[in-house]
């Protein structure tokens, strides 16, 4: 490893690794959103068992560090004899993490739809599913957009933790480059800038959505 790294080499390597950060974020967000939707429906269903199970699921993921969740997925699955690559473990771990948080955010949105909406639709003889589909979810969705976009920032930053199980995303690649170049300040500065470039537009967007929503109310 006695290669001389120019700054451009560092940037190029980081950009390549950044693509993995981006891919992992997208996968975790999309799959986490789908799983989160299923969790949401179970959480707000009238079935006590489903409610309790999903409440527990959400509490476990909100009450433990993401790092532990990744360790458990990564080492737990290999204990079960399933050989998982860091990439799969990272995707699965972050998906579960995201699903728990999104389900909880969305539950709050569903519950913020006023009771009068449920009563009016019930008095019109709509079934529970019809109330959800035509009255409650469309309103909850509008409320949910801003906090959901806001949470996507947490997902992007959360991907950094996957470096510890050896997944070569932005942070992991940054550590390797820092060791090889003896320029940790420069390298990690660039890594931080990379996260900022990904996250800042999302935060701005979430803020503008929030403002729009408050005006519209």
């Amino acid at each position, binding site marked *: 490893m006695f290669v001389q790294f120019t700054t451009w080499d560092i940037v190029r390597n980081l950009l390549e690794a950044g693509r993995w950060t981006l891919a992992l974020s997208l996968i975790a967000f999309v799959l986490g959103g789908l799983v989160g939707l299923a969790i949401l429906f179970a959480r707000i269903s009238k079935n006590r068992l489903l409610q309790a199970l999903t409440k527990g699921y959400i509490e476990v993921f909100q009450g433990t560090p993401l790092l532990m969740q990744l360790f458990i997925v990564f080492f737990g699955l290999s204990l079960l004899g399933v050989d998982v690559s860091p990439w799969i473990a990272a995707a699965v771990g972050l998906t579960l993490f995201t699903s728990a948080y999104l389900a909880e955010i969305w539950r709050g949105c569903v519950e913020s739809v006023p009771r*009068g*909406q449920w*009563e*009016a639709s019930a008095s*019109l*003889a709509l079934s529970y599913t*019809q109330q959800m589909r*035509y009255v409650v979810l*469309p*309103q909850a969705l509008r409320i949910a957009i801003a906090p959901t976009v806001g949470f996507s920032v947490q997902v992007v930053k959360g991907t950094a933790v996957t470096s510890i199980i050896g997944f070569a995303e932005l942070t992991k690649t940054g550590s390797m480059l820092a060791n090889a170049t003896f320029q940790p300040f420069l390298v990690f500065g660039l890594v931080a800038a990379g996260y900022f470039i990904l996250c800042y537009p999302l935060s701005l967007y979430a803020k503008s959505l929030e403002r729009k929503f408050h005006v519209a109310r």
Partner: protein
Amino acid sequence: MSLVKITGLHKHFGANHVLKGIDLEVAQGDVVALIGRSGSGKSTLLRTINGLETIDKGELVVDGAALHDGKGDLRALRQKVGMVFQQFNLFPHLTAGQNVMLAPTVVKSTSKREAEDIAKEMLLKVGLSDKFNSFPDQLSGGQQQRVAIARALAMKPKVLLCDEITSALDPELVNEVLAVVRQLASEGMTLIMVTHEMRFARDVGNKLIFMHQGRIHESGDPKTVFAAPQTPELAGFIGAVQEA
């Protein structure tokens, strides 16, 4: 035969015994005015009639749809019973027309075109045929309440329940809503309404019910009852309302 028949109805909220054995019969075309002090159980009684509150004990039958001790087909009952709320409760993400069309399309599987015709007819009835495409937040309180009435009527209910439907309105908007109710009454619609508009209750109603501490304390023809209340509680209530 009565359209609505309530027998021995009891309702508790926890330890609070709110309805203590209500017996009530309402005939087709009756216009019933429910009056009484705040907390006497008027809203709760009204809400049990379309199943928004469960019944602990007793029987409720509306045009053949029955609940015994709280058990029965709620959705069948609700198709016979429309309800208008104090706070309008229009669906804010839908236009006035869509508010009216929703239940016929999804509950009765009416075709979209037919539902649209029904919605236009109902909005015309409440004097809002030009507001089909307006969203609730573009309408005044009185207009919103009239859309809510149109929405309930679109399901062709046998009886319409109104819970203080003018109480949330600015005074100058009360009359446009009362005019619609008056019109419905004259067309023979069966109405049960909780109201603080005593003059309206007397002029439009043909049956007055005074509730007191969870019971029907006094009832009869509005003009007679107002002229000569039989119980000190009703006399006191009428006096208090007139002073206010």
